[in-house]
């Protein structure tokens, strides 16, 4: 039974009790506990169920590498699945529940998979569930989905908030163990701006637990002193609970700070994502202990030796009363010593090495611990937790020599440097024979923009073993990192530690060496995903020889711990099966993040109403207050229509159209793009951008212009006004403003960089209102200040002047077919101008109208709309816009493309009007069928609807469309099948696209 020791626990504050629940059971821990240590302290050794076989699972590790102890945390809008108990700091009121079982943790029906496990080897699902065919979707897959997955899905919107932080530093040190501290200390001394981050709540990493001495004092003391000294330096910043998540190109690093997980509070951010630009990164990320592969190594009570030491020393918890230690290296002896010192029993140390000798081993013997060398754990006994071990020779097949009763097993297969961050951005690894691990290949680091490495590993993360070497290496890396960014102010003497004498590790990938099939099928590699030695061997036999294949076939290393414990062990088994060396087989790719980070943190502040920036015209609030039914257009929102009480959207639109045609309408046109193009070559430039001739436009005049892509397709349109000899103002569509501005700049900067042309996007500088309808001139005359008669300001002219109190620029252009003035005022005067128009217009029946009324009116006039009549495949010639294509110019963007065979093909679909025979509205996007089918069995078509509306003016459906040979087929009737359930196709006649006022008598008054 695991329990709390009467004394000890260097991280605990025993004066502060903390209450929490696990599966509804009330439990108590202390301030300083992790959820894992508190669970152990409360005797809770069973904490979850494995993914595939639903086997009972206990805590294995004490940190980020934990594969088993995942819990659901919190409730409702704060419910979070898959929270790692080992990295969850205990707080008052914490509520955790275990996962992946039904009906309960202790009695889980899913465990049937365990008894059937021989029928469920690696990749079995690729070989079955194929018949009968529909059963996969309806029977097998739903069943697999139910039994897979881990935690419960959250249901509610997250109640917490998140934020992003940006930092620029010279040297980023990741990891606050003694290596990180030493590196930061030296880099800081050199004068570099240093950021030191540590994922846990504590500085110092393993050293204080391992009991090393640094500079003549206990490690814990040295750590405290050093942290204090670093905090006093203004060029060094330290952050705890902040994990280096990923390293990206150009020294870009993501870090994940957990601000509120240990102390949830309303209104404060829970997590913070740091976006760091560092000139140099030092990864002092430590090492992770490897499990040993013996039968039953997955039973609750079998733990990593280093973790057991952590629980005893840091949290005053004993994982068991009698702990057998099994190892292939010296380090685990420290665990035996720590247990013994805490007054716990260590019946034996099982050491796989034939005859190791070192001071540590001697120390264990001196304390009276039995050390069995050349021995192995043949298997662990017990069903739901450890009850004992059978010991055999490591060399044999596992014939039991002796049984030892125990309730915990501490295992150590050696330590692997944490190379994840080093590897994220292309750092390469070498295989270290002596320590049987991969470590960073310093000759092949991640490369920065200058061609030099920008990441250095330090300490044990760099393969340095033992306190003395770790400190020396980290000190040197800190110094080198600072130098690499040009800092060399001072150099401090390196911290020192005594050399430790240790017996060499001996790689043990199978325990015992010659274990037979039955034992191998009980040796777990990946505890969470239930991958066993036998699975990897099966994969190798079946030809999955690449490590990536094996990983994918067996799911080894694909669990939430991403193989932190299993990868090397699995790789070793694979290479043995293939008869190849480990480095030849190679590792899988390390991908960010180091441990999972919340989606909330990645999304940051951007949610709800501020999910994206909202662009607002000066009249936005008026629209909101007056029933605007919004339509998102890019980052803007435009009123689709203004709904009055009791009115449907459709009714509102029809009302707005009728009123504009009969009286007076106002449109907030501020969102239209307004790009100023200026310079001696501005005319020449616009001649290239547009299909029309713009250089001949006279100041004071406007021209409707078309822009095409290099491929000839129509991409935007708008009215160009010539302001003076050197200045043009180009209007674009709302959605096109930024795109067209960028398009212009791209050409100017890459192709015509020597032309004297400058552009500026003035879209937001002006508020613009279209004053439209037969009474438009009357209302403006009433406001007074400017002669707007047809003589003074003819159609397609513009003028600066004054209307009422407002300085204005008036364009006489029309997109509705009515008499229309588009009036621009400075943006800050926009709302006042709008209000003034409403006031002056009251007597004329003024009514604002939205985008849909705009669309209908332009369709009644046969004007095309970018995005409706065009879709990236349409050229101006298709739309009957040949008149807007200059024949005189030698070139414009798209000209050459429009000469290609397919573009000049007489069979291209061309713009026409469409009128249903019964007056109904043609379905949006409907296609006109043609006889027969094509070679692929698809129905032939000969045209399609591009815009379709009910016209209140004509009181019938009108539509525009593209039809093969359309303009030559006036009066012909086409059939458009429906998709809304209606059987009979809609019949429509080909007509002219101009439905309203074909001679322009309304607009040219």
């Amino acid at each position, binding site marked *: 039974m695991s329990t709390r020791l009467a004394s000890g626990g260097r991280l605990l504050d025993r004066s502060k009790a903390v209450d929490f629940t696990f599966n509804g059971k009330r439990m108590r821990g202390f301030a300083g506990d992790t959820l894992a240590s508190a669970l152990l302290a409360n005797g809770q050794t069973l904490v979850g169920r494995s993914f595939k076989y639903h086997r009972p699972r206990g805590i294995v590790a004490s940190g980020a590498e934990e594969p088993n102890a995942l819990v659901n945390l919190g409730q409702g809008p704060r419910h979070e*699945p*898959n929270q790692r108990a080992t990295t969850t700091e205990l707080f008052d009121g914490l509520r955790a529940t275990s996962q992946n079982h039904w009906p309960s943790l202790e009695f889980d029906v899913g465990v049937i998979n365990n008894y059937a496990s021989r029928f469920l*080897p690696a990749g079995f*699902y*690729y*070989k*079955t*569930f*194929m018949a009968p*065919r529909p059963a996969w979707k309806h029977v097998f*897959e739903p069943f*697999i*989905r*139910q039994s*897979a997955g*881990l935690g419960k*899905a*959250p*249901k509610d*919107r*997250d109640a*917490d908030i*998140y934020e992003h932080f940006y930092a620029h530093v010279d040297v980023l040190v990741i990891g606050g163990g003694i290596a990180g501290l030493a590196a930061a200390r030296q880099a800081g001394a050199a004068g570099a701006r240093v950021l030191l981050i540590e994922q846990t709540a504590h500085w110092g990493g393993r050293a204080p637990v391992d009991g090393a001495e640094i500079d003549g004092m206990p490690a814990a003391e040295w750590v405290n002193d050093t942290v204090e000294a670093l905090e006093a330096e203004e060029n060094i910043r330290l952050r705890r609970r902040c994990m280096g998540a990923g390293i*990206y*190109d150009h020294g870009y690093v993501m870090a994940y700070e957990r601000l509120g997980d240990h102390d949830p509070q309303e209104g404060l951010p829970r997590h913070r994502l740091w976006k760091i630009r560092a000139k140099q990164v030092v990864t002092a990320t430590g090492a992770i202990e490897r499990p040993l592969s013996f039968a039953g190594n997955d039973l609750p009570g079998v733990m990593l030796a280093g973790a057991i030491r952590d629980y005893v020393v840091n949290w005053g918890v004993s994982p068991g009363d009698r702990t057998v230690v099994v190892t292939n290296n010296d380090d685990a002896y420290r665990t035996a010593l720590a247990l013994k010192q805490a007054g716990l029993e260590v019946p034996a140390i099982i050491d796989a090495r034939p005859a190791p000798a070192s001071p540590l081993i001697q120390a264990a013997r001196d304390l009276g611990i039995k050390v069995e060398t050349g021995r192995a754990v043949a298997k662990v006994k017990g069903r739901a937790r450890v009850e004992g071990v059978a010991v055999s020779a490591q060399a044999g097949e596992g014939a039991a020599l002796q049984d030892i009763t125990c309730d915990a097993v501490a295992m150590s297969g050696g330590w692997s440097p944490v190379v994840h961050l080093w590897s*994220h951005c*292309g750092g390469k690894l070498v295989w270290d024979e002596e320590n049987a691990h991969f470590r960073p290949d310093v000759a092949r680091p991640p490369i920065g923009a200058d061609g030099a490495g920008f990441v250095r590993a330090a300490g044990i993360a760099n393969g340095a073993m033992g306190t003395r070497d770790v400190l020396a290496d980290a000190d040197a890396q800190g110094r080198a990192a600072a130098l690499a960014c040009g800092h060399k102010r001072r150099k401090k003497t390196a911290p020192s530690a005594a050399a430790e004498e240790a017996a060499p590790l001996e790689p043990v990938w199978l325990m015992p060496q010659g274990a037979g*099939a039955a034992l191998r099928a009980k040796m777990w590699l990946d505890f969470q995903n239930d991958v066993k030695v*036998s699975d990897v061997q099966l994969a190798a*036999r*079946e*030809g999955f020889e*690449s490590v990536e*294949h094996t990983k*994918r076939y067996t799911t080894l290393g694909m669990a*939430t711990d991403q193989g932190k414990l299993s990868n090397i062990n699995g790789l070793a088994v694979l290479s043995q099966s293939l008869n190849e060396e480990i480095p030849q087989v190679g590792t899988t790719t390390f*991908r960010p*993040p180091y441990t*999972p980070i*919340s*989606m909330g943190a*990645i*999304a*940051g502040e951007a*949610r709800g109403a501020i*999910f994206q920036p*909202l662009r607002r015209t000066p009249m936005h609030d008026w629209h909101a207050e007056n029933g605007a039914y919004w339509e998102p*257009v890019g980052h803007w929102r435009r009123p689709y229509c203004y709904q009055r009480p009791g009115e449907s959207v459709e009714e509102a639109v029809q009302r707005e159209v009728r009123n504009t045609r009969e009286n007076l309408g106002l449109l907030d046109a501020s969102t239209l793009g307004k790009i100023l193009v200026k310079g001696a070559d501005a005319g020449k430039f616009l001649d290239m951008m547009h299909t029309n001739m713009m250089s001949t436009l006279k100041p004071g005049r406007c021209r409707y212009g078309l822009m095409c892509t290099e491929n000839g397709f129509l991409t935007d349109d708008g009215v160009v006004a010539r302001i003076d000899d050197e200045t043009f103002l180009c209007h674009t569509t709302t959605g096109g403003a930024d795109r067209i501005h960028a398009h212009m700049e791209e050409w100017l900067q890459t192709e015509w960089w020597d032309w004297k042309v400058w552009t500026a996007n003035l879209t937001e500088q002006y508020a613009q209102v279209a004053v439209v309808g037969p009474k438009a001139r009357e209302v403006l005359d009433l406001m007074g200040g400017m002669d707007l008669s047809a003589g003074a300001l003819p159609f397609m002219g513009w003028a600066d002047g004054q209307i009422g109190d407002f300085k204005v620029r008036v364009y006489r252009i029309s997109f509705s077919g009515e008499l229309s003035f588009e009036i621009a005022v400075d943006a800050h005067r926009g709302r006042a101008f709008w209000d003034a128009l409403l006031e002056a217009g009251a007597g004329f029946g003024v009514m604002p109208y939205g985008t849909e009324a705009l669309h209908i009116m332009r369709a009644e006039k046969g004007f095309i709309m970018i995005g409706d009549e065009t879709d990236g495949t349409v050229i101006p010639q298709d739309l009957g816009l040949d008149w807007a294509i200059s024949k005189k110019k030698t070139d414009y963007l798209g000209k050459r493309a429009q000469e*290609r065979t397919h573009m000049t093909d007489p069979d291209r679909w061309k713009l026409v009007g469409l009128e249903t025979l019964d007056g109904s509205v043609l379905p*949006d*996007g409907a296609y006109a069928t043609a006889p027969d089918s*094509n*070679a*692929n*069995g*698809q*129905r032939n078509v000969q045209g*399609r609807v591009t815009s379709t509306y009910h016209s209140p003016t004509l009181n019938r459906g009108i539509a525009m469309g593209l039809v093969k040979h359309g303009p030559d087929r006036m009066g012909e009737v086409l059939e458009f*099948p429906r*998709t809304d359930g209606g059987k009979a196709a809609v019949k429509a006649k080909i007509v002219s696209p101009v439905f309203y006022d074909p001679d322009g008598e309304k607009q040219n008054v």
Partner: protein
Amino acid sequence: MKRYSAFAIAREALRGHTGWDRAWGSPQPKDRYDVVIIGAGGHGLATAYYLGKNHGVKNVAILEKGWLGGGNTGRNTTIIRSNYLQDASAAIYEKSRSLYETLSQDLNYNVMFSPRGVMMLAQTQHEIRGYRRTAHANALQGVATEFIGPQRVKELCPIINIDGPRYPVLGALWQPRGGTARHDAVAWGYARACSAMGMHVIQKCEVTGVKTEGGKVTGVATTRGDIACGKLGIVVAGHSGVVAEMAGFRLPVESVALQALVSEPIKPCMDVVVMANTVHGYMSQSDKGEMVIGGGADGYNNYTQRGSFHHIEETVRALVETFPMISRLKMLRQWGGIVDMTGDRSPILSKTPVEGVFINCGWGTGGFKAIPGSGWGFAELMAKGASPLTAEFGLERFREGRFIDESVAAGVAH
């Protein structure tokens, strides 16, 4: 090839799974093959498979520089749909989708095709019109799709937020028989079937040169020696430009990194695939329980197989907005693949200026769904010189301006 079945598993279980055959061989390259395919991704393997199955061409080698299925085939988010707008696209993607329906049985390998339904959200008026148009086109193309309203969207996918403050869901284009499949299994299933026909799948064999004589292909140089061939199929996705250059011609293709990510696994909460193009992100839940999320491509060309973080951020932001419950899930892993983008974002399945050399590339961000159909059509093209499925996808279309542009139907094209 021993057949896979529940019975076979039971039999093997009783003898410790020692009797399973290798899924595919590990042959030494021969001096010559009738057909050499470069690239053992899904498209290369499927091409070989249908060459053998439909056209009796079995003296085939598939050369792979790394491990089979290790390119984009093993990195994608596995969305399968055929609700494309243009006839040529709809034809090949629907052929593909329909082959997926029976692929497990055909290959005797469970590729886990799961027609769970794919919906593409309309969140602007423009999208509504676009998807209505696609639904009309699909009806005539024989692709079953339907435009559905927001309430139906919510019923099919309860975790979706249909009335977000910025982009409320206005409807969706729904393809009930779209879905997902297990990407590795598709590659492995084809590889096993090719191997069983006597074809050679040769891994760790990089093609370093293409040999020609008088404008006609004679073979390839590889890291495992020279190999002669009658016909050569280049099916190397992101590296198409590189291999085409070896054969002496250029392609209108750019290579960029496209990224994806998964969350930690959770119990089932989402049955359908949802793509949200306005906010730019898409998501489904794998059988393992992970939320599988895909996002945008980098704006610059590169071969790194990793991408810029801001794309991840943009995608996650979009999806947290669309599915607020994922905020408290965690990102487990992110990765990238190099996708081959053509000017019109449609693939190239074509003869080339070199006689006997054929190219299949340009699937870009959306070619997983096309693997069976592309293999079917490309095999026909290689065997017979023409195929109705590939007819529109020739290289000459760029010269003629005969693009197959899908931008109307999909901002996110996966």
